[in-house]
């Protein structure tokens, strides 16, 4: 029973990731694609949590933290790039 529910949840997350991937392919503007990428990262985090429950191990929980941090930083970098055209701003002496 529990295993069936977990497999169903994993399949549903896979469907959600596939739909977001479709939005990345057809998205008309760059921010659309970045929103879909952010959503894929968040769904991957929950997919890894489900796999960790399914295998009964706690070894995958660090992966959740690292993937969440990577998704957040990549979204921040993309939004800085869209807004100004540069990611790291610095003042030059001239």
């Amino acid at each position, binding site marked *: *029973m*529990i295993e069936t*529910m*977990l497999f*169903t*949840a*994993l399949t*549903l*997350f896979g*469907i*959600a*990731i596939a*739909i*977001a991937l*479709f*939005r990345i392919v057809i998205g008309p*503007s*760059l*921010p*659309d694609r*970045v*929103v*879909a990428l*952010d*959503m894929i990262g*968040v*769904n991957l*985090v*929950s997919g890894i*949590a*489900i796999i*960790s*429950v399914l295998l*009964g191990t*706690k070894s995958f*929980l*660090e992966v*959740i*933290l690292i993937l*969440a*941090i990577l*998704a*957040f930083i990549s*979204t*921040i970098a*993309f*939004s*800085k790039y*869209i*807004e100004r055209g540069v990611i790291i701003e610095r003042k030059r002496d001239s």
Partner: protein
Amino acid sequence: MSVSDIVEFLGVLLILIGSIMAVISAIGIIRFPDVYTRSHAGTKSSTLAVLLTLLGALIFFWVRDSFSVRLILGIVFVFLTAPVSGHLISRAAYRARVKMSDLTVEDELGDAIRAYEEDNDDSDKEAKGDKGE
């Protein structure tokens, strides 16, 4: 059926509800007309989905062997950062002048920016004139 079985079932049920929320937000991200409504679907309901899933995993592991601090850290981190990234990407889209859909009724920020530019128009012209002279 013991108590721990029932609590494990509740955790897995939370995970299943979270996955259904994820599919709903994916439908939102494919159906909504422009980037602002899409960020509404991709940020809020997707955050709810991942929070429900991580909470279910936390309950499951709590009953199964022990309490997991790393899952708490993950929940807090996602809960803090998902609204921030959604706000930043919407702001970047607005600054990059991504077009709104035709169904948009009101754009209060655009009105405010236009009023501000009209107010400061004279000083801008004077500054430019000074530079030219």
